[in-house]
C-alpha cells in the first residue's frame, strides 16, 4: 500500500510537470502581448515625428526619386502573378490590421507556389528560385499560424523574397516598392504595393502613412 502511494506520488509529479510545461504556450502569448504593447507606445511617439518629417518638403524629393527609378527593364512575366497577388493579399491584411486576412493570404501564397510551374527554370535561375521559394514558404507558413506582430516580422522577410523573385523572373504587374524607416525595429523595411498611395503594412492604422515610394516596377 505504501509503495502504491509512492508510485501515485511519482505519477502526480510527472503529470504536474507536464501541465507546467504545457503552460508555455499561454505564457508565450502573454509575453507577446506585453511586447506588443510597449512597441505600440513607442510607435505612437514616433508617429508624430514621422508625419512631421514627411510634410517637411521630404515629399518632393521622394516623388522625384520615383520618376528616376521606374524600372523599364523588368521582364514581363505573367507566371508570377498568382504569387504576387497572394503576397498583396497578405500585405492588405496587415494594412487592415487583420490577422485573419493576412493568414488567408498566407494560405493563398502557399497554393500559388505549389501550382507555380518551375519546369521552365534551369541551372542558376532554378537554384535561386528554390532558395527564394524555400524561404518564402517558411515565411508564409508562419504567417498562417502566428499572431499579427509575428506575421509582420515574417512579412518583412517575405517582402525581400518576393522582390528578389521579381528581379529573377519578372512580372507584368505595375508595383511600387515602398520603404518605411520605422519598421523592423527602427532599421527600416521595404514592401511592395499595387497602389501608389502609401498604406503601411508594418504598422497598419497606427502609422498608416509612414513610408515613401522607393521605386516603381513597370
Amino acid at each position, binding site marked *: 500500500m505504501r509503495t502504491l502511494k509512492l508510485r501515485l506520488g511519482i505519477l502526480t509529479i510527472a503529470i504536474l510537470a507536464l501541465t*507546467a510545461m504545457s503552460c508555455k504556450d499561454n505564457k508565450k502569448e502573454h509575453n507577446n502581448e506585453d511586447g506588443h504593447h510597449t512597441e505600440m507606445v513607442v510607435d505612437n511617439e514616433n508617429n508624430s515625428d514621422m508625419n512631421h518629417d514627411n510634410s517637411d518638403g521630404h515629399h518632393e524629393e521622394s516623388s522625384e526619386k520615383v520618376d528616376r527609378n521606374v524600372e523599364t527593364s523588368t521582364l514581363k512575366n505573367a507566371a508570377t502573378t498568382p504569387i504576387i497577388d497572394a503576397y498583396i493579399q497578405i500585405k492588405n491584411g496587415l494594412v487592415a490590421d487583420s490577422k485573419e486576412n493576412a493568414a488567408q493570404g498566407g494560405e493563398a501564397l502557399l497554393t500559388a507556389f505549389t501550382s507555380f510551374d518551375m519546369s521552365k527554370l534551369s541551372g542558376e535561375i532554378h537554384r535561386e528560385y528554390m532558395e527564394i521559394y524555400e524561404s518564402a514558404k517558411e515565411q508564409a507558413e508562419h504567417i498562417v499560424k502566428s499572431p499579427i506582430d509575428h506575421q509582420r516580422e515574417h512579412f518583412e522577410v517575405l517582402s525581400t523574397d518576393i522582390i528578389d523573385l521579381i528581379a529573377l523572373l519578372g512580372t507584368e504587374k505595375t508595383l511600387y516598392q515602398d520603404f518605411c524607416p520605422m519598421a523592423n525595429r527602427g532599421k527600416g523595411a521595404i514592401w511592395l504595393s499595387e497602389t501608389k498611395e502609401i498604406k503601411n503594412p508594418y504598422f497598419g492604422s497606427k502609422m498608416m502613412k509612414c513610408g515613401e515610394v522607393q521605386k516603381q516596377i513597370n
Partner: protein
Amino acid sequence: MKIGKKVAIILLVVFLGIQFVPTKRNQSDNISASDIMIVYKVPEQIENKIKVSCYDCHSNNTQYPWYNKIQPVAWFLEGHIKKAKEELNFSEFGDYSKRRQKNKLKSIINQIRDNEMPLSSYTFMHKDAVLSESEKSELENWISNLRDSL
C-alpha cells in the same frame, strides 16, 4: 473508494507500462561539419552561451535531464525537440542557404530580444540557460555582425 483504487491501479499499470517504450534520443557522437560553431568562427564565450541556452533543443545533441528517463515526459521532450529542430538546427546551420541563414539569424535576435527564447518552461528547469541583459546584447551584437557579413 473501491473504484478509486481500481483507477489508481490501472493508471499505475499504464504508467509502468509506458516506461518500457523505447524513445529515440537526440544524441550523436560526432559534431556535424555543418555545425554553426564549425562553419563560422565563434568566440568562446558566445559559443558557450549558445550551447548552454539553445543546443538542448536546437541541435542534434541534447544534454538530457534526469526526468527525461520518465515517460511521458520523454515523449513530450522528443516532440518538442523535433519541432524546435525543424525551426532551427544549429548542427545543420551550414547546410542552410545563405538566405535562410540570414533569416534565421534575424529571427534569433528578435526572439531573444522579445524574451521568447529560451522558453520560460526551459529556463525554469535550466537556470544556467537564462540570458542576462548584458548577455542578450552581446549575443545580439555578435549575431547581427555575422548576419551582415553573410
